[in-house]
């Protein structure tokens, strides 16, 4: 049989809360150990136990990280979705199933491979049989793909770190299953894992943990948070890392953590911390941003630094709480009533999660405003490759803060909201300093911070705010541009779509369309984004939502002669972006 190496997609169908996550991560990590380029997606339900869950493992020598458009190996463990899981498969798919489910597998056009997983697991531990049964499909997969025993052992050790009993029981189960598969199934798989040279530097990490570490290295002083999927693990990672990395000289922590009563309070605490001169941050998802919106306007108008990470899930309303989307971009950019505009940082990789984690505080204090970090469930809760985080290459930017009388005396005609040097950013003083105290307010105020309803004062204050945020454009992260010499078509995209773009690009290329790409990494968008549009005849804005939110922002802000070049490919079904969905749509809109 001709083998296909390192190019396959495994789909594991199980029920939530049955311990399958450990088994899935062992497959993922054992492939990773062999140097096989691999990615995993957890499609889980909004439920603690019982509802169906799928885990997709994609191996690709070409580095594709999107979930594959087809499944090559299907593992069926969940009776509730059994029929549907089987019915959806293409002919030729390998099916691994638990014989103890006692359910039919009527797919003669597929390769069906059964194993009495629960019965075998009972042999090792009657009590743990339900959990251990999952390890038998790991063994089955290990046999089919030829995953090395060392890699399996290392992945099991990593999964059950320090629990010797669990390690030996699970290794025994996997080994029994491998033997069973070899004796009963034989060599039936076209798909095979082949070792690749693996850089010793690389490891897999979830975006949320990368962001958390970025915040820790950004000097976060206060985390306030209210639990919400998919952002909770960001807060919990910060909490986990504080004792290791943020202990003061006396052994006390240098970052306070408050679990707030709701998202409104979480945002208010960030505001209070920023106003008092600290680095405050909260993390949430779309519903939280909706609730925080009133405070977001106060950040903007009173010019208080703060950071909010929005880990997008599928909206509107409660939506699909455990699925992904880029549905909050327009909201974050212009959140709260009246004219507002907020800085939005959009990482596309776990390295950028770390980097923007610390940079967000610098931008917030420099521009004295709220900065959004914009992630999503796919980037935040799935595991991605990095070769290690890079230490901040700049000192902390604490912005224009006057800390003593001497500094105050050096500023001519000081006023809290007076732009003395033309960049739209005024100097501020901190509570407790006794320097030029004012009563901060969300009501209209003049350059000295005094209440005012004067039309000219209001108009000029709003113009200055616009100038201030506009001035951040070319200081914020520039887009990542991959340019083809001959390309007349450009694609603009952002965030976690980075993980599908290579495959989309290849699919387009395969059909004769060569494109340049521009990944936007911040709003307000960098001037290079405008130049990118200028250089191409047609520009497709591709994003994971229904309405084309970045497309809308570009249409609003680009010069009118460029707007007619724009096309929108916006698609969202809650799942991470599959390359073919988007490639097909790119052709559709261009062919019009």
């Amino acid at each position: 049989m001709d083998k296909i190496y390192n190019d396959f997609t495994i789909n594991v169908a199980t029920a939530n809360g049955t311990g399958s996550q450990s088994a899935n991560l062992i497959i993922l990590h054992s492939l990773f150990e062999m140097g096989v380029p691999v990615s995993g997606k957890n499609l889980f339900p909004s439920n603690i136990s019982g509802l169906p869950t799928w885990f997709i493992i994609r191996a690709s020598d070409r580095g594709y990280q999107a979930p594959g458009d087809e499944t090559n190996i299907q593992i069926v463990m969940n009776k509730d979705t059994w029929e549907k899981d089987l019915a959806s498969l293409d002919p030729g798919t390998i099916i691994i199933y638990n014989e103890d489910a006692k359910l039919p597998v009527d797919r003669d056009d597929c390769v069906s491979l059964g194993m009495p997983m629960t019965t075998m697991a009972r042999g090792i531990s009657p009590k743990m049989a339900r959990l251990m049964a999952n390890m038998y499909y790991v063994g089955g997969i290990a046999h089919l793909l030829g995953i090395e025993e060392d890699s399996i052992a290392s992945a099991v050790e990593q999964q059950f770190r320090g629990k010797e009993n669990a390690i030996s029981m699970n290794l025994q189960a996997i080994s029994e299953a491998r033997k069973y598969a070899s004796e009963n199934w034989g060599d039936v798989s076209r798909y095979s894992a082949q070792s690749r040279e693996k850089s010793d530097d690389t490891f897999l990490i979830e975006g949320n943990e990368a962001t958390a570490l970025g915040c820790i290295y950004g000097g976060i002083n206060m985390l306030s948070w209210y639990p919400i999927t998919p952002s909770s693990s960001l807060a919990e990672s910060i909490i986990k890392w504080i004792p290791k990395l943020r202990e003061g000289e006396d052994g006390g922590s240098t970052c306070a953590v408050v679990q707030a009563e709701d998202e409104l309070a979480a945002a208010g605490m960030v505001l209070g911390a920023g106003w008092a001169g600290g680095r405050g941050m909260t993390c949430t998802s779309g519903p939280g941003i909706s609730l925080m919106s009133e405070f977001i306007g106060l950040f903007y108008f009173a010019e208080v630094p703060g950071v909010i990470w929005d880990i997008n899930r599928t909206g509107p309303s409660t939506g699909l709480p455990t699925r992904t989307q880029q549905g909050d971009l327009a909201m974050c950019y212009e959140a709260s009533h009246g004219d507002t505009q907020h800085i939005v940082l959009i990482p596309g990789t776990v390295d950028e999660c770390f980097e923007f984690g610390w940079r967000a505080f610098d931008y917030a204090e420099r521009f004295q405003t709220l900065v959004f970090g914009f992630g999503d469930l796919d980037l935040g809760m799935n595991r991605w490759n990095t070769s290690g985080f890079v230490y901040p290459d700049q000192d902390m930017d604490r912005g224009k803060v006057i800390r003593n009388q001497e500094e105050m005396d050096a500023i001519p005609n000081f006023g809290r909201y007076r732009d003395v040097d033309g960049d739209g950013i005024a100097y501020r003083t901190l509570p407790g300093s006794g320097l030029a105290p004012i009563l901060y307010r969300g009501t209209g105020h003049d350059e000295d911070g005094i209440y005012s309803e004067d039309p000219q004062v209001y108009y000029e204050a709003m113009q200055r705010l616009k100038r201030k945020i506009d001035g951040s454009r070319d200081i914020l992260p520039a887009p990542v541009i991959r340019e083809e010499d001959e390309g007349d078509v450009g694609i603009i995209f952002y965030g976690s779509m980075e993980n599908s773009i290579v495959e989309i690009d290849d699919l387009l290329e395969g059909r004769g369309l060569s494109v340049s790409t521009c990944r936007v990494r911040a709003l307000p968008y960098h001037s290079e984004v405008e130049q990118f549009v200028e250089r191409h005849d047609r520009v497709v804005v591709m994003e994971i939502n229904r309405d084309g939110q970045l497309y809308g922002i570009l249409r609003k802000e680009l010069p009118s002669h460029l707007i007619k070049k724009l096309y929108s490919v916006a698609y969202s079904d809650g799942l991470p972006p599959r390359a073919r969905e988007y490639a097909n749509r790119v052709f559709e809109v261009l062919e019009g």
Partner: protein
Amino acid sequence: MQTGFSRYWRDEDMVKLNVLNLEKSEYKGGKSSLCPGCGHDQISNIIIQAAWENGIKPEGIAKMSGIGCSSKTPAYFLAKSHGFNTVHGRMPSVTTGANMVNKDLSFIAVSGDGDTASIGIGQFIHAIRRNLDMVYIIENNGVYGLTKGQYSATVEKGSKKKKGAPNEQAPIDLCAMAVNLGCTFVARSFSGSKKQLTALLRAAMSHRGMAVIDVISPCVTFANNDESYRSYNYVKTNDEVLHIVDYIAHFSPLSEVEVPEGEFSDISLFDGSTLRLETVSDDHDPRDAVAALRAIHEATQDGRHVTGLLYYDPDQPTATDNLGLTQAPLVGLPEDKLRPSPESLEEVNANFRAR
């Protein structure tokens, strides 16, 4: 009687200085834009008086408020302190954030009955639950003034404002709620009782933890008619005083203070000051939550307002006490204390790689 003050002669008159050698004018604020005769302006004056008499550094104070008539008042006192007139009902969370990063600030907050008992009741409750180290003054008149006189949630059943029908809904008693939640300092007073309110406010400023003072403050424009339970006349005649309160500052030795003739008890406050409670008729023990609730409910039944120190529990940790924070306020930490070293990041990376 009390020491801690000094005097000096300026050209035309003698000027009194507090323990920091500051004139009272150092604690004043801007001109009020509230209705003439508003109870809130009385309270602003008492805040100025109390902060000055207690000798608190103006720059060490942070004035906090929400939205409403009462929440405008931080502009009218303590001009040398930073302040934040935040959003409606959300002042406690902003105060919490500021307290987390700078626990050395003295927070004096002003809110109203709409701001606290309706839109902000959740944040009020959770600030109490955390024992946030702040003075929380509710200027409570039973109506929304800035939107022209709608009833608020604290107004008594049967009370009637100047225009419209009497209120039919049951009131929220913020003091009873605070006692139930274990608030560590709960007092009620009246904007027209200058001596009582000054002493209670000074005690609240000497307390460490959440000090709630619910101050009945008549709305002269919309609810100062006799049928209003929160009018001047009504409160004056229906004030059920728990005890005579007298504040003795830590810098005024107790031995030099005149001993009252009748029965009294002393309460020791965090900064070493004392609140002396002189018995009026029945003895009230502020350490007894049940007694506090009984006093509130009995007074309410009789259509009266009970005033004084209702409840006091000095032994609870504050919001920042249990967080294991470093001693210095976090805002003062230099970069090398906030950003872990390059070596530590190498170690983090190495640990991930070794997995």
